[in-house]
Structures are given as structure tokens and as C-alpha cells.
């Protein structure tokens, strides 16, 4: 019961306290305006280069933008606590680490999903991209799974925050790598082979591929493998992130660097 309370109440409280994202002054420019302009930027570059259709860029960028809340928010679970001088207090509590850290990821997944959904809807409307009605529910599922897998990677980023002071820098770098590697704006077939091989092991790649097929008229059954792969990758990153967090916590205690990393 206590673990459940830490998971839900602790996660939500931490989200509200740490990120302050409930204020529209941050939420609107960061999560609503920026993804739309990223979609427009690449859609227009796509129109210049005649590489792919607008739909390709709407789906790719809308799903990829879930990475912003997922990476930054998870990074802030450590960086923000350190900034507020509460990191040591949190880590000295007897609370189970699993509900403590995973609980913090739940609101983040919801945040990433909402950002993607908004970008999908408004990006499609702005560029006149038609998505079949039958694809809407499966796309909702894909957006949720993609936000989940990004949060898994975000947990790894949070673990890095126990050793690296500038979590905003690592979050931006990971976001940039996902942009380049995951077939967001360039088809995997147009990337060098080594890049598309790495992309297979990253969050987003399979989710975006599934999203594009669904928007193209495919049914959920035909992309089940891609959705499953995205989910599996998310689980792997989540487990790896949790293990890394524990390792870094132990290391941080041993070296006395929790507050000064």
C-alpha cells in the first residue's frame, strides 16, 4: 500500500513540484508551439527536397517530440532535486526505489503522450494531412507506447544526472541523436547502414514506423510487431535505467558526490 502511495502520489507531487510545468507560460511555448514549428520546418524542407510527403514529417516529428518531456522531465527528477537541495533527503528515505523512481515516470509518460497527440492533430490540420478515421485509435496506442519507451530512455538520462551536473545538456544531446538516428525525417533506408542498425535499438524508431503505416491505411494487426518491438525496447530501457540509477546512487553515496556531481 505504501509503495502504491509512493508510486502514484509521490510521482504526481514530484511532477508538480519539480517541473512547474503546470504554468501555461512554459507549457504553451515548450509543448504546443515548438513541436508544431518542428513539424513545419521539416515538412517545408521536405517540400524543398521532394524527399517524402507531409504525412511522413507530421507523424515522425509529432511522435519524436514526446522525447522532450520524457527526457527533460526524467532528467529533472535528479537535477531538479539537486538544485532544490532535496536530493539527499529523497535518497535517505526508506522508500522503495522502484515505486519512487518509476512513479515519477508515470505523469511524464502521460505528458509525452499529450504532446504527441496535440502535435499529430494540429500538425495534420495545418498541413492538410489526412489520416483515416480507422487509424485514430491505433495511433493513440502507438503514441502512448512511444511515450513509454522514451520515458525508459529518460530514466537512463536521470541516472546520468547522478554523475553529470548539466542534465539539460544531456537531454538535448539525446533528443538530437534521436532526431538524426530514428528515421524521424530521413527514411532509415537513406541513412548509412550503421546508423539504421543503431536505430533499431533506440526508442521511437519502431513506433514512428508503425505510426506511418497506420496513417497510410494499415491495420493494427499488421503493425503489431513494430508496436511490440517499441514496447520491448521501452521495457529494456526502463530496467536498464532503474539499474543504472541504483548503481549511480550507490556510487554517489560511496564517493560523497550526490550533491556536487
Amino acid at each position, binding site marked *: 500500500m505504501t509503495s502504491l502511495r509512493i508510486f502514484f502520489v509521490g510521482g504526481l507531487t514530484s511532477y508538480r513540484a519539480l517541473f512547474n510545468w503546470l*504554468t501555461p*507560460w*512554459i507549457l504553451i*511555448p*515548450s509543448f504546443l*508551439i*515548438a513541436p508544431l*514549428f*518542428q513539424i*513545419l*520546418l*521539416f515538412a*517545408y*524542407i*521536405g*517540400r*524543398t*527536397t*521532394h*524527399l517524402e510527403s507531409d504525412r511522413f514529417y507530421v507523424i515522425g516529428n509529432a511522435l519524436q517530440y514526446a522525447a522532450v518531456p520524457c527526457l527533460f522531465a526524467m532528467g529533472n527528477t535528479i537535477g531538479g532535486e539537486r538544485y532544490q537541495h532535496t536530493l539527499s533527503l529523497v535518497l535517505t528515505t526508506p522508500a522503495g526505489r522502484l515505486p519512487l523512481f518509476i512513479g515519477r515516470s508515470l505523469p511524464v509518460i502521460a505528458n509525452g503522450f499529450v504532446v504527441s497527440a496535440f502535435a499529430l492533430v494540429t500538425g495534420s490540420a495545418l498541413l492538410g494531412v489526412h489520416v483515416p478515421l480507422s487509424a485514430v485509435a491505433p495511433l493513440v496506442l502507438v503514441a502512448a507506447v512511444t511515450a513509454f519507451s522514451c520515458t525508459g530512455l529518460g530514466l537512463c538520462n536521470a541516472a546520468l544526472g547522478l554523475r553529470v*551536473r*548539466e542534465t*539539460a*545538456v544531456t537531454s*538535448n*544531446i539525446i*533528443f*538530437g*541523436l534521436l*532526431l*538524426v538516428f530514428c528515421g*524521424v*525525417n*530521413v527514411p532509415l533506408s*537513406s*541513412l548509412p547502414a550503421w546508423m539504421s542498425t543503431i536505430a533499431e535499438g533506440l526508442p521511437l524508431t519502431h513506433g514512428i514506423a508503425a505510426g506511418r503505416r497506420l496513417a497510410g491505411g494499415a491495420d493494427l494487426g499488421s503493425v503489431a510487431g513494430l508496436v511490440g518491438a517499441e514496447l520491448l525496447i521501452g521495457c529494456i530501457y526502463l530496467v536498464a535505467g532503474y539499474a543504472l540509477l541504483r548503481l549511480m546512487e550507490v556510487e554517489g553515496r560511496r564517493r560523497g558526490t550526490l550533491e556536487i556531481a
Partner: protein
Amino acid sequence: MKALRLVAIGWVFQLKMLSRSAFDGLLGILWPLFFATTAFFMFRTSHDPRALLYAALGSSVMGIWSSTSVAASSALQRERWYGTLEAIVGTPAHFSLVLIPITLAMSTVGIYSMAATLLWGRFLFGIGVHIVHPLLFAVAVPATVLAIGLLGFLLSVTVVRYRTAWALGNALEYPVWLVCGFLVPLSLFPGWVRPISWALAPTWGVRAIRQAALGGAPQIPVAACIGLAALYGIAGALLVDTVLRSARKSATLSLT
């Protein structure tokens, strides 16, 4: 003379501080490279070396705007965090002479990113930059940096009452990349976008740099760049007085 000395020394100090910041220095170089790499992959499919060069030059200016937009919009907030805002407002020098070097240093840091993007394009994508008018190129780059720095100055003053202005600066990054024709010709946009593009100095800056490098007459875009920079400077300086008067009157300088 004193004013010039203040701007020059302030610019050097700020440049040194920014160069040592992981966020403004390292990320300022890396961040535009991700977008440049994506653009290079996209433009490469056209198999046109001129298209790749067009993308390389446009991408290189993206970094100058990136290093300015977020940092400039939160420039005053940053001074507040440092606890130095009251001190610099209280100096006998006009506040714009204190603030301009800060935003100029931010846009100057973008030159690192510009060089990194061109080298990245050269060594990883084989994009050779042959500059047709080297002298004019050498004028176009500082003119662009100056104009973007002063646009940053105007931005920082305009959003002074907006406590989380960094978020606005962040959101302004893509729109300026888009409407200023860094990677997309302005002719692709609806007609109502063009006056907005013309009012933004980065549009003329990237045009000047492209025409100096690829051949053309960059003198007019350079002049437009400098003219807009002067306008931004005057507008910002006038606005600074109003904003400071208001903040002093309501005693909100350190609280906003």
C-alpha cells in the same frame, strides 16, 4: 569613446563566460549540428552539390540564432539569478550599453557553431565551400552576428516582464529558422509570411552570406542587415528606459 570601451570590454567578458558554459558553449555547437546533419541527409537525396552547399550555409547560420534566442530571452532573468541585476541597472552607464554586449556575445558564440557546421559538412558529407567573394563574406558574417545580437537585445528587453522567457526563446528557435529562409526558399511560403521574413535580420544575414559565398550581390542584404540592426538597437534602447522606469516605480526589479 567610453561607450565603445564599455561595449567592447563587456563583450569580451561575456564571451569568456559563455565559452566556459556547457550549456551555451558545448551545446551551442552540438545542437545545430543535429539539425544540420538531418538537413544534409535530406538535401543529399537531390544529388545536387549546389543544393548541399545551400543547406550547409543555411545550417551554419542556424547556430548563430540558436545561441542567441534562448539565452537572450532569459538574459535579464539570468542576471537576476546571479544577483547582479540591481548592480548593473544602478551603474551610471545607460543600461542598453550593459545589455548589448551580453546579447552580442551570445550571437558571437554562434560563430563556433557556424564553423563547426561548415567543417562537419566538409568532412562528413564532402560539402566544399568555395567562397566567391571572400572579402564580402568576411563582412557578411560579422554583420549577421551584429544584427542577430541586436535582435536578441530587443527580444531580451521586450520579454523582461515574462518570468519564464527562456521558454519563449526556445519556442522562437524553429520559427526563425523556418521563416528566415535558412533551409527553405521564401517563395515556398504563403505571401503573408514574407513581410515577417523581411523584418527579421537573419533573413538578410543568411542571404548576404549565401550571395557572398555562391556569387551574387551581397551588398544590399548586408546593408539591410546593418539597417535592421540599428533599428533593433534604437527600439531596444527606447524600450529599456520605459521598462526600467516601470520596474523602479513599482519596485519589481528583482521580483518580476
